[in-house]
């Protein structure tokens, strides 16, 4: 009886083991596409192990194509131009590609499998993009709902970014959020200080990532982010610049001002920083220091509704109203905006009226 049971179990296990073996052999022999060469933008060549998706293969080569869904083919963010060797367009891709993209041979890199030599085209900035590991070394209260987080880089140890760019901070799963998410935050530190970055984060009610940053992230904790991304940076023109920010939209300007300070920038620059109440303003001392270091820089804090008993003597109302009060026309200026969508739209309207053409208005809009 016992022998019979053992024999039966053995027989069944043998069959299952045999099938598994066949599958493993097939996986190794048939699905092994060997090394494949991927040509990027016509010049750079990378040799990757075939058989995996283009997205993963490039990730192994430290080229990070932005992807929100993690390669499941649902977000449509990981688009790249596949010039050769991509094979036919798959039914899983068509819903996420426009007609024009399909004609321009744009593909979803998470769906294209590397089967042989490939030629692809990706934006140059993807090359400079890296994944960073860091340690949260300091958390500082700026206002009642804004904090400044300092991340000391651990791997790689330095970062090179242009003042005004942002990083995608990874927020791990925690109580209340089951999936890992990434959120974009502008770097708010001196670009020459390449061993750390500062992020200024304002608490969003029920925000997944900001809740994690405010309630779970502690000094000393490891963090990781990718970047730097973005084309919001100070243009190299001689025209006077107007900065407008609301809330944590201040962040990229801190970085830009550091850059200006190092360059002893003499261009006329005015920075309007708006808050609802006096308590919303922050970094006033640092701004004063920038004013002293840069002779042609002026910082204008604006409070929308100062409490009646407060001693606020500065500009009041909306930032845009303050701009209109301070200037009659802004012909020949450049506008730099950072803040929520509402503020950006309003500021765009006002700047346009005051004589700045759309192509001279640069902005970083919070999504």
């Amino acid at each position: 009886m016992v022998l019979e049971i053992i024999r039966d179990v053995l027989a069944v296990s043998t069959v299952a083991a045999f099938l598994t073996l066949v599958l493993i052999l097939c996986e190794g022999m048939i699905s092994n596409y060997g090394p494949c060469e991927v040509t990027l933008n016509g010049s750079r060549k990378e040799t990757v192990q075939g058989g995996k998706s283009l997205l993963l293969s490039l990730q192994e080569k430290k080229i990070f194509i932005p992807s929100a869904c993690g390669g499941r083919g649902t977000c449509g963010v990981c688009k790249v131009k596949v010039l050769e060797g991509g094979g036919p367009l798959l039914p899983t891709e068509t819903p996420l590609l426009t007609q024009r993209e399909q004609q321009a041979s744009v593909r979803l890199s998470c769906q294209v499998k590397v089967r042989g030599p490939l030629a692809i085209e990706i934006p140059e900035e993807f090359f400079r993009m890296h994944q960073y590991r860091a340690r949260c070394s300091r958390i500082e209260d700026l206002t009642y709902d804004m904090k400044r987080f300092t991340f000391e880089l651990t791997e790689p140890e330095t970062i090179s970014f242009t003042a005004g760019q942002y990083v995608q901070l990874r927020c791990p799963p925690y109580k209340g959020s089951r999936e890992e998410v990434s959120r974009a935050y502008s770097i708010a530190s001196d670009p020459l200080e390449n061993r750390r970055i500062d992020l200024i984060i304002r608490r969003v009610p029920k925000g997944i990532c900001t809740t994690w940053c405010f309630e779970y992230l502690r000094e000393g904790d490891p963090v990781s982010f990718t970047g730097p991304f973005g084309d919001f940076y100070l243009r190299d023109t001689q025209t006077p610049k107007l900065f407008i920010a609301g809330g944590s939209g201040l962040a990229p300007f801190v970085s830009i001002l550091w850059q200006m300070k190092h360059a002893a920038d003499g261009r006329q620059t005015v920075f309007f920083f708006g808050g609802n109440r006096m308590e919303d303003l922050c970094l006033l001392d640092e701004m004063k220091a920038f004013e002293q270091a840069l002779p042609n820089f002026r910082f204008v804090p604006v409070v929308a509704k100062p409490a009646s008993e407060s001693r606020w003597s500065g500009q009041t109302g909306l930032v845009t109203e303050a701009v209109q009060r301070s200037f009659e026309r802004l012909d020949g200026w450049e506008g730099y905006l950072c803040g929520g969508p509402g503020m950006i739209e309003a500021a765009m309207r006002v700047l346009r009226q005051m004589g700045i053409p759309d192509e001279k208005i640069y902005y970083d809009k919070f999504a």
Partner: protein
Amino acid sequence: MNGLGAEIWQAVVVCFAAVFTNNILLTTFLGMCPFTSVSREVRTAAGLGGAVVFVMTFTCLLNWMAYHWILVPLGLEFFRFILFIIIIAAFVQVVEMILDRFSPRLYQNLGIFLPLITVNCAILGASLFMVIREYSLIVTIGYGFGSGLGWLLAILAMAGIRQRFSESRVPAGLQGPGITLIIAGLMALAFIGFTGVLS
């Protein structure tokens, strides 16, 4: 030689019956899920049907061998459900890998349907029927091939019909799967008409 000839003839008969009178889809209503969901276009229906013919023929053959050469001698017949399922799954996996590697064109047309078929009850059903009906190896090949062909025929006909009436006005409550099931019922009645053609 005479015995073999008779068996081949029986395989042909069983095959013919499996296509028409005993159509696995229309008489037992197995494999209904892809039948209702992938029958909107003749082209995709043909791809899926082709994959079913291929997989059904070979899994019936493999399962027959596993059943008669492993399970029966050991007296483990009751174990066939699990064994058949893992054999089907492994077979489909291997075929998918081979297609993906050596025939991207075929993979494009057929391969994307393969994972769908792994969990298709018609495939498992055919293997189980072949055991219940005590078919021999050669007859099993005929049966597997015929059942697949019958399934292909049914889904092709359905896709053709659905393409035709895609323009017609179906009552709101019957659109989609509802009208598809009604058509499947009418088709089943029509297929019964084949009874007695070959006996």
